[in-house]
């Protein structure tokens, strides 16, 4: 019989999606009923919260492996993954215990309520009995962030194949957080009416890669400024309100502004839109939202500083009826009507639909989108139904070009996961009165080949090592792109970038030709000029 560890290995050892799907299907065919439900939960990233403190875990592992804690920490810096580090340092066990998923999960739940001594003894008991991949996977359950090499989409595909069901149905049934202890395959995958809290799968747009003229007549398209907030679905059913983010987090508690809507709007309604802080008739910067979301308790002050609205662009359910198959123009008419009928104007806004004479006019708006508090345009065909997942053809996002700056690499740190043991996390600096001041970190954007070359360069050009971080000779220049720039009191440089990433290695530029802090400050004022 294929156990979860064999499944993990099979997924881990192939890069082909068909191989991964087949492995999951085979597992589902062979595993016990209760293991299946737990395996699906884990593969979907739905698992109990971290049951122990990782600092405790490190201390116990060092003691159990007879090495000093500093050596374990150094090893962790290199490996980049605590669970894997522990697997390698923990002494080999000579007993091999079967990896029984449900029992392990029960023990993990037990850990959450246990005192520290009991936690330690439960964990050390497992460490004495597990080896290799089983030990690694067990540690992964303890350290959080367990990502098996499959996307949600692949798991859904495999489950659908196994149950001989349609993928969108399975996706709908697997949305949100469900408790594997309370579900069976029957309850989870039965069409049920009482799952009234569930959102519909989001319809996502691909970026527009060709010229907009290829889309045909501009009058066939509904064109909206693309706002930079949190995409969400707002649901009112059975006198309850639910707000889901696109990441499928239930965020109702964070968005208290919408609570009153249950008293205003009728049941059986689902709206799709952008949740965004809003004041004086226009949206506030995303950084305002981030500060608000980061707080555990929403104070009166944060409610005043960052009052949220939803800018609505779609209605998916009306009077309890799923209307996703309606053409967009008809859904939009319904949306306009309901926003006018009910007194919701202070928290629900209608997403603006722009009328352009030509694609050229649209392109002009897009280029200057930041001046209109937008990050580009959304192009939606007026006849489009509300589809499932990311689909090409009828919805496109057409974002404005990112801003760019040339920065000098000054610090490097080794990455995690696939990039562990390789210096891939970089800090960049710009010039300020003859000094280099760090202003951002960036991780992605280079090819593996470039990463290896730069990694070698870093090892040869290290000035100093501070734990996992190295300072390097300030020689290499990189072009960095980002979506937003703002003043920030939280960053040393006084500047915060949104979505910074590396565009390319400017081998043609010496460090002296990198940008200056002055350039960045000018960029900030040019972007925000028209906003204020």
């Amino acid at each position, binding site marked *: 019989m294929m156990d979860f560890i064999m499944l993990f290995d099979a997924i*881990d*050892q*192939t*890069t082909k999606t068909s191989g991964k799907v087949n492995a999951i299907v085979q597992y589902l065919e062979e595993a016990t009923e209760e293991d299946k439900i737990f395996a699906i939960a884990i593969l979907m990233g739905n698992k109990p919260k971290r049951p122990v403190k990782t600092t405790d875990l490190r201390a116990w592992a060092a003691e159990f*492996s007879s*090495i*000093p804690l*500093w*050596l*374990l920490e*150094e*090893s962790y810096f*290199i*490996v*980049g*993954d605590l669970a*894997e*580090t522990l697997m*390698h*340092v923990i002494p080999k066990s000579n007993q091999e215990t079967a990896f029984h998923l449900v029992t392990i999960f029960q023990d993990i739940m037990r850990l959450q309520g246990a005192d520290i001594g009991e936690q330690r003894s439960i964990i050390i008991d497992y460490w004495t009995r597990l080896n290799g991949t089983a030990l690694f996977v067990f540690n992964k359950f303890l350290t959080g962030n367990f990502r098996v090499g499959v996307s949600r989409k692949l798991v859904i595909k495999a489950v659908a194949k196994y149950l001989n069901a349609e993928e969108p149905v399975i996706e709908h049934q697997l949305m949100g957080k469900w408790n594997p202890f309370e579900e069976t395959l029957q309850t989870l995958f039965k069409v049920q009416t009482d799952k009234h809290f569930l959102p519909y799968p989001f319809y996502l747009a691909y970026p527009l890669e060709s010229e907009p003229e290829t889309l045909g007549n501009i009058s066939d398209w509904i064109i909206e400024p693309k706002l930079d907030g949190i995409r969400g679905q707002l649901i009112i059913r059975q006198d309850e309100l639910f707000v889901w983010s696109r990441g499928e987090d239930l965020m109702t508690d964070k968005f208290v502004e919408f609570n009153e809507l249950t008293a205003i709007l009728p049941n059986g309604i689902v709206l799709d839109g952008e949740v965004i802080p809003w004041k004086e008739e226009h949206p506030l910067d995303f950084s305002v939202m981030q500060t608000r979301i980061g707080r555990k308790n929403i104070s009166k002050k944060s409610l005043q500083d960052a009052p949220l609205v939803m800018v609505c662009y779609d209605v998916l359910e009306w009077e309890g009826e799923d209307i996703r198959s309606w053409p967009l123009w008809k859904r939009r008419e319904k949306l306009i009507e309901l926003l006018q009928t009910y007194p919701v104007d202070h928290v629900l806004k209608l997403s603006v639909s722009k009328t352009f004479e030509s694609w050229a006019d649209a392109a002009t708006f897009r280029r200057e989108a930041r001046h209109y508090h937008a990050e580009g345009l959304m192009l939606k065909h007026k006849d489009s139904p509300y589809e499932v997942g990311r689909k090409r053809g009828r919805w496109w996002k057409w974002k404005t070009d990112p801003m760019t700056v040339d920065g000098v690499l000054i610090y490097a740190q080794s*990455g*995690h*996961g*696939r*990039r*562990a*043991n*390789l210096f891939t996390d970089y800090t960049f600096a710009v010039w300020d009165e003859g000094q280099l001041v760090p202003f951002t970190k960036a991780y992605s954007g280079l090819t*593996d080949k470039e990463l*290896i070359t730069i990694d*070698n360069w870093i*090892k*040869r050009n290290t000035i100093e*090592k501070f734990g996992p971080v190295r300072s390097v000779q300030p020689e290499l220049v990189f072009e960095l792109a980002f979506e937003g720039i703002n003043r920030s009191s939280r960053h040393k440089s006084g500047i915060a970038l949104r979505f910074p990433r590396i565009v390319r290695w400017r081998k043609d530029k010496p460090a002296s030709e990198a940008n200056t802090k002055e350039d960045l400050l000018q960029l900030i004022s040019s972007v925000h000029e028209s906003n204020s």
Partner: protein
Amino acid sequence: MKLLSVNDNGLYCNVGDFYIDPWKPVKTALITHGHSDHMRWGMAHYICHHHTVPILKLRLGEENSVQGVEYGEEFEIKGVKISFHPAGHIIGSAQIKLSYQGEVWVFTGDYKLASDGVSQPYEQLRCDHFITESTFGLPVYQFPSAHDIYAAINRWWKKNAEEGYNTVLLGYALGKAQNMLAHADRTIGDIYLHGAVANVNAALNEVGYQFQGERITSDTDRSRIKEALIVAPPSASDTPWLRKLKPYRIGMCSGWMQLRGARRRRGVDMGFPLSDHCDWKQLNQAVLQTGAKKVYVTHGYENVFSRWVAEEYNLQSSIFKTLYNDEEEESA
């Protein structure tokens, strides 16, 4: 005054006025083994184990002045007694032992204690001053036995062959390639070689080694290569040369394959943690068994290993900053 120290050119013996594995051109260079970070171009005179001689001529040119020595053979330069001893790293690899005025120094070069079934096994030496590499000087590096890995490789090759795939094994052309070839099970299928591997095999043949496998040349009929094992250096991955061997599954043999991140970054189907270096346990064992009072740690995780040796064993331990770059995944 220390008998050995590091200067801009390399590891230097001031009494004998010679270098070991220098990285800049010097007059006299003692060479531990034939990997490119230890055996560099431009020395007026090379001294190495005689099995390294053909490698040196292959890689650096026939015209070089090279003196081959036997393991254990003692000779003198300006009063410093010198001998080469098996390091167990690759064919011809040596630890270099220096004795002067009753003090014994050993530089390991690259080495390993565990047997690989091909290179002459490591010889345990006693010394006062021990200079050790630390490529895998972290407790997360504890390798399975090479012989278990050879068996796993053969099983994998067999499975691939049954499913109609070629098996491509990537490993350093000098060392890993010969280890794999010496243990590949010919009953599973044919064995083919990348030119770089075949060149090294031909050079080693001059000193009596024979390895199986047929060189792939531009004339080789690729349609004949079916369910075969193909041994190639890591640089062959992602090349048109390799693509012509489709369909294949590809595996990488390197100590770095011990970590998932490295395995996945390589984008190979399988990673085998086959190393020609000491792992954590072997490094510890080596340090203790030399009886050295003073340990110098070079290339690898020198900070960590040096601190560990000092704290755990109460030995004097310091770092020698060298330019040997086994940090690169290719060679380890």
